[in-house]
């Protein structure tokens, strides 16, 4: 897309990289901070994944076997929270940190110290959250960890919330502060730090999607902060926001939460769109089809995402006009999403395709994300949602878009950019094993959920009726298979971190374009101290 005349000053690349613990604790370097984010999110992915396996172990057979229902609720709650706020979001922020300055020819993120602050808040916030679970697990469920679902609806989280709810509220505040600062950093970097000649419409799509993601973050994280603050005062200071006895309404909570919550799901998926839009052209050896339409589609998805929130609340008894509005708006959002899918397919049309690891993940993303989008469309139909709401069908929907969508694209990004980060190619044998095992197991895990959901199995229950037993057994098998397969990715990452493997060239992928491939692999500590010139 951009012809680059890059001239780096190799002489000052290698000195003054700080050493030891201080390098990571006090860092102001976008690459190091990106690495921290990525390892942190991977650790959280493992912790959240372990909780998911506790859930699936319990649900493998009907009846109660492994945990008691109270602890089961804590597992579903904290699994969701950790995966959303601890795994997916920090992973994409890590990618943003590593790649955005490299892609736009900036010396670093615009506000490097604040960048480090955004990161270091997270381990503390999750210490609080996970601490609550550990106390519960080792204290025989007393005190209880948060147990009201990742959506923490009132009054479950207000009047009936366990004592740890207050810790949860404060840790959500911390995550919010971290996200807002991280997002502001991205916006300012993109708007203010582009190399001369890097006009907005020349930016790689990953930068565009992250810019729009960051806008969504700045817009909705404060709303989440408002919601948890109201919870806190309802719990302890006698306010009546979510209490009808004082003139409030528990449904108000759902409105505020989903005003945050729906844009939040796009916060998790828009960076993925950017990743896939970087990878598919590379391995199709063609330019991205419809670049401008991709930008406009992303922007319209983001804007529409502010006016669809109540599709999560069709069953609360909204007036008909409201229900219809949210139904049509939700269906409208699949138009720009469709534009994207068509553009990816058109990019591959008559390309000279090869199927290296990143491409495999990206293709799996396109197919499986589309499945998730289609089940979303089914859920968007109000009368139909009355039946599907709060069943495993919804669980199937959002795991297709989040696991085989967001997480697969993050794997794609890792395999694509690991050569740049580490200087060695990811191990192909392990990578292939990781891919094929994940691909097969993820479908065994989530596809049958559609069927049990349509048949009426409710979500968030520790037990189920006997007729769901067979499917649930297979789902659990898929879950353990998927979970164990991820250990292969641990091996891939550790090998790369130890620099074991084939040495990577500056541009290891034949068809790849973009500034990030003009610097050596691994990328030196400082890049683009003097901005490159982009023609």
């Amino acid at each position, binding site marked *: 897309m951009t012809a680059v005349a890059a001239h780096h000053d190799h002489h000052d690349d290698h000195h003054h990289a700080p050493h030891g613990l201080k390098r990571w604790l006090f860092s102001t370097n976008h690459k190091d901070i990106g690495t921290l984010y990525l390892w942190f999110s991977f650790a959280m992915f493992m912790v959240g994944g372990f909780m998911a396996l506790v859930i699936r172990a319990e649900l493998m057979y009907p009846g109660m076997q492994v945990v008691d229902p109270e602890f089961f609720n804590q597992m579903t709650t904290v699994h969701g929270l950790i995966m959303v706020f601890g795994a997916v979001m920090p992973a994409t922020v890590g990618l943003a940190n590593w790649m955005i300055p490299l892609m736009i020819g900036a010396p670093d993120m615009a506000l490097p*110290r604040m960048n480090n*602050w955004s990161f270091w808040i997270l381990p503390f916030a999750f210490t609080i959250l996970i601490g609550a679970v550990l106390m519960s697990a080792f204290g025989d469920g007393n005190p209880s960890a948060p147990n009201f679902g990742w959506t923490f609806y009132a009054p479950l989280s207000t009047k009936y919330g366990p004592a740890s709810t*207050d810790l949860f509220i404060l840790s959500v505040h*911390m995550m919010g502060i971290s996200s807002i600062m991280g997002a502001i950093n991205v916006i300012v970097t993109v708007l203010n730090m582009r190399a001369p000649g890097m006009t907005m419409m020349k930016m790689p799509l990953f930068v565009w999607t992250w810019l729009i993601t960051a806008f969504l973050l700045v817009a909705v994280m404060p709303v989440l902060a408002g919601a948890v603050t*109201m919870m806190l005062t309802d719990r302890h200071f006698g306010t009546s*926001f979510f209490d009808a006895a*004082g003139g409030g*309404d528990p449904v*108000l909570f759902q409105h505020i939460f989903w005003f945050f919550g729906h844009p939040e799901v796009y916060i998790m998926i828009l960076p993925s769109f950017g990743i896939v839009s970087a990878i598919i052209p590379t391995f199709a050896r063609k330019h991205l089809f419809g670049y401008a339409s991709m930008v406009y589609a992303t922007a319209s998805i983001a804007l529409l995402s502010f006016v669809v929130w109540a599709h999560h609340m069709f069953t609360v008894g909204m007036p008909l006009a409201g229900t219809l509005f949210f139904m049509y708006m939700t269906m409208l959002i699949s138009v720009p999403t469709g534009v994207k899918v068509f553009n990816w397919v058109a990019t591959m049309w008559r390309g000279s395709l090869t199927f290296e690891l990143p491409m495999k993940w990206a293709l799996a993303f396109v197919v499986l994300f589309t499945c998730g989008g289609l089940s979303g469309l089914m859920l968007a139909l109000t009368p139909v949602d009355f039946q599907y709401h709060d069943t495993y069908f919804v669980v199937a929907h959002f795991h297709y878009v989040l696991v085989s969508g967001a997480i697969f694209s993050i794997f794609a990004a890792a395999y694509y950019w690991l050569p740049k980060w580490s200087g060695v190619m990811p191990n192909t044998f392990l990578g292939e094993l990781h891919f094929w095992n994940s691909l097969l197991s993820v479908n065994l895990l989530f596809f049958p959920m559609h069927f049990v959901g349509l048949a009426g199995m409710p979500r968030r229950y520790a037990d189920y009726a006997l007729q769901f037993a067979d499917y649930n057994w297979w789902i659990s098998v898929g879950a353990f298979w998927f979970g164990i397969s991820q250990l292969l990715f641990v091996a891939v990452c550790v090998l790369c971190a130890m620099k074991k493997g084939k040495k990577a060239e500056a541009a290891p992928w034949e068809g790849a374009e973009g500034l990030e491939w003009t610097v050596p692999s691994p990328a030196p500590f400082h890049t683009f101290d003097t901005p490159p010139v982009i023609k």
Partner: protein
Amino acid sequence: MAENSSKYYVPESSPWPLFGSIGLFLIAIGAANFIQQSTQFGQNTLRADGTWGQYVLMAGVLWMIATMFFWWRDTIKESLTGLHNEQLSGSYRQGMIWFIFSEVMFFGALFGALFYARWLIIPWLGGAGNNAMTHELLWPGFQAMWPLTTTPDGRTTQVMGAWGLPAINTAILIVSSITLTIAHHALIVGERGRLILFQGITILLGLFFLSLQVYEYYHAYHELGLTLEAGIYGSLFFFLTGFHGIHVTMGTLMLIVCFFRILKGHFTKENHFVYEASAWYWHFVDVVWLFLFVVVYWL
């Protein structure tokens, strides 16, 4: 002052972000424990005995203030030694604008809750729309009204009128915005005397506003029975005016810090980002108040 450098300044490394995270951690666990142990549902009292949370919270706040101090000392030093170039000021400026935008969204959520309560919840509880049975079965005696002076379960309060203190406060804030603009202008044209004078007036107006707010709260609690526990009207009233008040406090502190930096001669015609940022923040707080005056007090 040294020449501005042409390269974008990327600091070497800094301990303050990590320290800031530790501070937030202390505040979070301290506040959670303190709030939990020291409040009792249905009672307007704080019991501060027998909790460790208060000490952790206080330690966290002090820790945070110290961290902020050292962090800003570093940036001020960098600014004074000319490490900040035009592009970096741009980053700071844009960052501040987006921070204010996030604050706008926070208040947006609170205003949204107010409209939802006023236009939907209350009428529905009173039986509007298809909610006749809700009304009949839940609180048949409930009368829909705004401001809600009698809650469904029978708690009562009086309404805070608009044309007493709140109107005076509105005037104070508007005038303070004007005086601040005069001061800002004086800074740009380099009239130091006028700058110091009007900056001082603005700060005094801010403090005056805050003390009237405190007085109003006292009045609300002791004479009107308007409390946090007085139902949704009280909840919204104190949330909106309270968070606004916190923001005025922060804005005033920023203006005070600027005042001392003016006295030290830190700001020049070209280089006074912090001053500009505080001024934007002040105007933002002012605009929020205007909305608040209209929808919370007046209509």
